[in-house]
């Protein structure tokens, strides 16, 4: 049987950082369904937050101020001790990435350049033009290559094997050779990213199915705060490609059909740089009240960069300009960009503590698939890249502690039993006679965008849940065209869809139960935050009847008492 000390599922920033921290001492393997360089971290544009105080207007920035902004941005749902850890680590990991070769943009004095971002009191977002994810992921991959980290590229983790409160490894699907293997490991780490594709309109890559969260949940691991879904204010209409917040950080305006900078009404001080939940709701309100623009692809608002001038756009936002030209034939130097809010980020995920440990011995999670929670009800721009690298690093430290102090013996028996289940299930999909996966996914994602979107209401959420139950029934008969295991993407889609339905279910049920509005979760029927009843995390676990069983968990408050959030 294939076996490693540590198997890391995910070759994005979180997975690579964990591997780099462990590979000198342990036999580590990364497993990723795409080549690590194709992971979605590559697409991050705007930047990564750290209180370096390099910016002339940020000289008295500090990790404490970063902590406060993050907690306020989270609408007080973040665990404050974890936010403190992340913000203290931020300058350390940014310098470390720089020392490893990361080509950040620079200020005149040769220091790392920083720009303003939403919800931050100081310009603390370190960047490389508008390709920050690309340079960070390349640097970490380069580091992994230099250390000879073993990578199973284009291998899919199909199931997690837990027995007796301990993780024994995974079942893996080699997509190219069409074979399924159990892999035994003392420790398994999930760094599988977000679930954007559960929604119809998302800025996320096609591979962001959230299956990692679904796999862990199906294996009995609790997941946390799934109802908190970030909608980014500015996705390009049509393709929903992200138009980075850095456009507004550099000074861009949002304009309605009355030619007004409407953010004046919603966040008079912060304007376009209010946190994302607020800007997205403002845009949606403008559209719903008839102040948007019409297009066959949907209603939209305009983002105006023209006043920044050609030079600034070409220097600071060249990638955005190229996206606009390539994908909708618009040059933002001369024209306004049509944008709409789109699903962007998952604040929720696999329930972990600040050491990335889960309830299960030997199972860890980091990055977007995990919920520590450092983002609470709303993540600030630039804090997610930070989260991936900080908690990737801290998971390596925690795993080393665990393996140094314990004699861990994973077993083959539960792995073989699970392999059997997986193979039976695949045979069943091949022999089914029902629908093919795409039509089920299309109904699921439309349901999520329509009924579990930016503005939510009890009856719509109830409808969403009802539809999810119907979709689960349809999925039982999901069918694929070919029974071959070799390069069968349709089969992979069918397998992933099963996990996506579970993820959607936990989002919808969390949103249905949470009768308040906090951060990205807005209920029209309960439009204010209710700390007395709802200052708590939602925990979902797979119940005996196959539906989520919900409980709640305290929020850790250290020194920042919840206040009203004003921008």
């Amino acid at each position, binding site marked *: 049987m294939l076996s490693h000390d540590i198997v890391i599922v995910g070759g994005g920033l979180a997975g690579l950082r964990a591997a780099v921290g462990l590979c000198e001492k342990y036999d580590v393997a990364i497993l990723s369904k795409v080549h690590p360089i194709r992971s979605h971290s590559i697409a991050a544009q705007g930047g990564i937050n750290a209180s370096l105080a390099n910016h002339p207007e940020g000289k008295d920035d500090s990790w404490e101020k970063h902590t406060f902004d993050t907690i306020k941005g989270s609408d007080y749902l973040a665990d404050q001790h974890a936010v403190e850890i992340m913000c203290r680590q931020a300058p350390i990991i940014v310098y470390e990435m720089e020392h490893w070769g990361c080509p950040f943009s620079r200020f005149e004095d040769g220091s790392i350049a920083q720009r303003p971002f939403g919800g931050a009191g100081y310009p603390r977002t370190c960047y490389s033009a508008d390709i920050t994810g690309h340079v960070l992921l390349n640097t970490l991959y380069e580091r992994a290559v230099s250390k000879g980290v073993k990578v199973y590229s284009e291998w899919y983790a199909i199931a997690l094997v837990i027995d007796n409160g301990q993780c024994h490894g995974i079942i893996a699907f080699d997509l190219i050779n069409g074979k399924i293997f159990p892999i035994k490991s003392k420790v398994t780490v999930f760094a599988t990213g977000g679930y954007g594709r559960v929604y119809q309109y998302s800025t996320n890559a096609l591979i962001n199915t959230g299956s990692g969260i679904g796999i862990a949940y199906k294996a009995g691991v609790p997941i946390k705060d799934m109802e908190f879904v970030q909608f980014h204010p500015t996705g390009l209409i049509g*393709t929903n490609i992200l138009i980075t917040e850095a456009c507004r950080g550099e000074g861009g305006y949002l304009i309605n059909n009355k030619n007004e900078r409407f953010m004046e009404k919603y966040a008079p001080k912060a304007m376009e740089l209010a946190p994302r939940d607020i800007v997205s709701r403002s845009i949606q309100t403008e559209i719903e009240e008839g102040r948007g623009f019409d297009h066959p692809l949907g209603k939209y608002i305009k983002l105006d960069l023209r006043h920044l001038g050609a030079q600034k756009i070409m220097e600071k936002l060249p990638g955005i300009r190229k996206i606009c030209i390539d994908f909708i034939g618009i040059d933002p130097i001369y024209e306004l960009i049509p944008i709409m809010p789109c699903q962007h980020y998952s604040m929720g995920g696999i329930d972990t503590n600040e050491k990335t440990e889960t309830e299960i011995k030997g199972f860890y999670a980091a990055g977007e698939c995990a919920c520590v929670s450092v983002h609470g009800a709303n993540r600030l721009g630039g804090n997610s890249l930070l989260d991936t690298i900080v908690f990737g690093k801290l998971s390596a430290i925690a795993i080393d502690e665990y393996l140094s102090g314990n004699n861990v013996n994973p077993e083959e028996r539960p792995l073989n039993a699970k392999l059997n289940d997986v193979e039976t299930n695949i045979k069943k999909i091949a022999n089914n006679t029902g629908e093919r996966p795409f039509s089920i996914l299309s109904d699921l994602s439309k349901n999520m965008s329509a009924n579990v979107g930016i503005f939510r209401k009890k009856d719509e959420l109830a409808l969403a849940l009802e539809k999810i139950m119907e979709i689960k029934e349809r999925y039982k008969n999901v069918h694929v065209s070919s029974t071959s295991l070799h390069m069968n993407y349709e089969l992979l889609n069918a397998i992933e869809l099963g996990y996506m339905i579970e993820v959607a279910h936990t989002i919808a049920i969390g949103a249905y139960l949470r009768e308040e509005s906090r951060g990205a979760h807005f209920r029209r029927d309960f439009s204010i935050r209710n700390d007395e009843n709802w200052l708590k995390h939602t925990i979902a676990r797979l119940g005996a009847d196959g539906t989520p069983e919900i409980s709640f968990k305290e929020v850790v408050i250290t020194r920042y008492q919840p206040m009203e959030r004003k921008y």
Partner: protein
Amino acid sequence: MLFVLLRIRDEIDGTLSFRSSCRSAVCGSCVMVINGKIDLACRTQVASFGTNTIILEPLPNFEIIKDLVVDMTPFWNMYEKIRPYLIRKSPAPEKEIKQSEEERRRIDQFVNCILCACCYGACPVLARNPDYLGPAAMAKLERFILDSRDERPHSVLDEINNENGVWGCDTVFRCIDACPKDVRPTDSIVGLRKAILKKKLFGKYK
């Protein structure tokens, strides 16, 4: 083009194989030959052809695994060969290693490479000599050689001072035409040739 392919797989032929991920021209997954031109399917607009027939082929210079999926192993082998990471001898400072805006700008175009292998597929030298390093690996090496922070030994230039390295290039610029990110790999090859000559004349390349 990518959305057409996805629709074909979804609604018509579920067995069709092609790679895809970001659908925004940054991850480099969906490279193929589209009506004779090597490009990323996601950024190619089908309407621009004005025809009902579009011919798709897998990327040349690679073994085909299935349909439009090729085996990228040789590409990654060449990438790893040039030691694609920052090499330092000096101890790390407490904060960042300073770099001027001008020094940062010097590596800009090579930093933009998304490792999609369009250039590798377009290269006529690779078509006849699979041991040739290829444009992407040399652009990556130049990215580090030009980086003011990099301190790799001069001997790295000896390794590419041959027909499988910088002198293999035909300088017919197919790689530049093929690059979807406006990187000019030929510039890097010329730059590396100059570095080799500089080292020969002055004993150092920087």
